[in-house]
């Protein structure tokens, strides 16, 4: 098998063994869910319910505030118990709607359109927008926006991201194994909405079963293909994925559509399938609860808004004293101050690490060893960005690549001096936001 990849990057141990062979389990309901109004890039959704309202599962509770925004739906049936600030999966406090379950699990009626693939692209796009789908790999860009490129940009290729390059996470892997046909149907819907003639499913070599299965299903479809990648982090990053799959380089500061490509996560493709066929809103998703500290690592299909504490309980609790709880993967995820935070549409994993694994050592002076330079997938000079930020040299910071950093964390992962490069670069991104926009 020919394996593709991109220049730069690094090799964190993949740690998939905890949960890669555990089939997806349903977590049908939760006692309480917290639906955040900002689960996506763009304007926060506007609530259309008030405290005390009874809602059914799947009912609209907050609507998109503009085009680049998202609808939010009740993920359980029950009563709106509070609208206010709650702990967000990224570790900050943010506006959200809390629903307390009535235990009835009443659901709105879903339709079933068997011929959904012959629907008009505009109708498909509308269903996707109504379902409140955003990128489920973590960035959370509203999907209907991504599927509406300006007229002058023609899209010929859709790439499904089945790379799952973050260590530990296995939710996409399990979904590909268990819902392969649905994902391919979702890919066809995406291709139809953007008018692409080519569909590629990109999967890393550490998921040979998923590669085989997808290849088998794509055999008869001449517009679809599977591309296998050599193990390399961050292969799932959009620009790196596009390069690895098609050898096209997205211009710096540009979007994938500049090279005729749209990228969607496999989880998103599944949600798109459900929205196109059943008009089902995005109210649940698969999340890996994994790491050395969880008693029984699992891949759960859980309602959006379930608290991480409830997920941990469902996986038989912790093994001992928890060091760090990460929402997302360990390379780009967020360390949570408390397990009371709730999962969102972009929550692909909850990684629970021991005190020892979470231990980090103090920053040393930079040795200029240039490992960060060699591991940077964006071909930047990370140490020079960090030094420029430390000495407040905007020009140098931007020249060394501040604006092009995708914060994948490869540099910080390999740094022998344990310098928190991503944190310094983030500081720079915030401090020089005005200069970067120029």
């Amino acid at each position: 098998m020919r394996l593709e990849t991109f220049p730069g990057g690094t090799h964190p141990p993949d740690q998939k063994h905890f949960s890669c062979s555990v089939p997806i389990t349903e977590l049908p309901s939760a006692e309480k869910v917290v639906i955040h109004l900002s689960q996506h890039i763009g304007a926060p959704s506007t609530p259309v319910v008030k405290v005390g309202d009874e809602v059914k599962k799947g009912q609209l509770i907050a609507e998109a505030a503009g085009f680049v925004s998202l609808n939010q739906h009740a993920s359980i049936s029950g009563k709106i118990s509070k609208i206010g600030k709650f702990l967000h999966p990224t570790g900050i406090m943010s506006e959200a709607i809390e629903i307390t379950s009535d235990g009835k699990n009443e659901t709105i009626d879903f339709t079933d359109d068997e011929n959904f693939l012959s629907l008009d692209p505009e109708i498909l796009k509308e269903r996707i927008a109504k379902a409140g789908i955003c990128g489920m790999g973590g960035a959370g860009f509203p999907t209907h926006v991504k599927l509406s490129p300006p007229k002058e940009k023609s899209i010929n290729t859709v790439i499904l991201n089945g790379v799952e390059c973050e260590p530990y996470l296995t939710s996409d892997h399990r979904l590909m194994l268990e819902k392969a046909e649905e994902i391919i149907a979702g890919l066809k819907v995406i291709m139809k909405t953007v008018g692409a003639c080519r569909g590629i499913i990109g999967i890393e070599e550490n998921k040979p079963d998923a590669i085989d299965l997808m290849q088998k299903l794509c055999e008869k479809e001449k517009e679809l293909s599977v591309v296998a990648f050599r193990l390399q982090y961050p292969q799932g990053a959009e620009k790196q994925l596009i390069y690895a799959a098609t050898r096209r380089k997205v211009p710096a500061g540009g979007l994938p559509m500049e090279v005729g490509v749209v990228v969607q996560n496999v989880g998103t493709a599944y949600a798109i399938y459900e929205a196109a066929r059943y008009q089902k809103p995005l109210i649940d998703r698969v999340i890996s609860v994994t790491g050395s500290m969880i008693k029984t690592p699992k891949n759960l299909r859980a309602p959006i808004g379930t608290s991480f504490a409830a997920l941990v309980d469902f996986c038989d609790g912790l093994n001992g004293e928890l060091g760090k709880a990460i929402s997302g993967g360990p390379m780009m995820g967020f360390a949570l101050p408390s397990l009371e935070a709730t999962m969102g549409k972009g929550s692909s994993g909850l990684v629970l690490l021991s005190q020892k694994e979470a231990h980090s050592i103090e920053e040393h002076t930079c040795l200029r060893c240039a490992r960060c330079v060699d591991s940077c997938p964006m071909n930047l000079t990370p140490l020079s960005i960090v030094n420029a930020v430390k000495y407040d040299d905007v020009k140098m910071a931007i020249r060394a690549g501040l604006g092009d950093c995708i914060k994948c964390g490869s540099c910080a992962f390999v740094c022998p001096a344990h310098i928190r490069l991503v944190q310094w670069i983030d500081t720079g991104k915030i401090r020089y936001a005005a200069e970067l926009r120029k």
Partner: protein
Amino acid sequence: MENQNRLIVSPAPHVHEGTTVKNVMWNVVLALVPALIFAVYFWGIRALTLSLTGAITAVLVEALIQKLRKVPITVHDGSAFLTGLLVAFNIHVGAPLWLPMVGAVVAISIGKQVFGGLGNNPVNPALIGRAFLLASWPTRMTAGWVAVRGHTMSGINNFNKIATNFQGVSQKAYDLVTSATPLKVAQTLRDSTFVSEINAEAGMDLAGRIFTGLTEMDTLKNLFWGNIGGCIGEVSAFALLLGAAYLLYKNIIEWRIPLSYLGTVFILSFAFGSIPGSEPSLMLPFFHIFSGGLLLGAFFMATDYTTTPVTKNGRIIFGIGCGVLTIIIRLVGGYPEGVSYSILLMNVFTPLIDMLTMPKAFGKVKR
């Protein structure tokens, strides 16, 4: 949750490869152990005594200075030990014990700590130490060298092949072959006064024959294994390559600098290295690569993190620059060997090279 208050919150990434500064430095020391073992095998325990004297002095001086500067004492990180060891590696086994001591003191104090310590020094501290010794005690540094038992200094063993009645031709030529290092022999042969002193045509012919002897397979073998005279750490090409392979395998050094450095030396010595009366041969570049401090320099000093360029293209430029300077010094300069000075000179250019070679981001169009 009963322990939610004790969760560690920090920015991503939450995992680390595990390498530390300490780990890197001691691994480089480990990679130098084969060279040290060879030196001890050739010259006895004296080689070890000199090496440890340099290394321990460096550690003590660094600890003292850090104490005076009231900064944390970090000598356990191995960087001072490594610097001291490298200083001693540039000294021959016949040198007095105070020589590596003085070299280590200068390397750590003037080469490193005045600039703020590890990571801040502009040029390689060990080479500063060596340059200081060479300028201050030129005879101590170059006289009294000891050849490996049963071999000559130059590595040329087979006199008969070169001249049937060697001693009859010239005592001077005999002394040269038996008591000068390979690079010193090469330099002397290039010097016309040597030829004229041992009179006219016969001299010319003899010089050519000695030169050929220098690049013969037997001599190259002696160079490769270390059966020659030289500095403690430079003597065996094999031992140094062993260490270099370990560092490359462990991803501690990167191929760009050593490869461009050695490649440049290879090409230039092949093109310009021969002397009148000898044919250019493919043995010549190997002679230049295996002799002197080139391998020690290319793999262990030109790859020093702090003092070399960080950009990928910059590293290649750095390596080529070192190669060009080394060959210029060896072929036309006043010293037989130019590795340390060429690296020192290129160290000074490092900031400039980095500025000029800063890469464009992935997807950025050249303007």
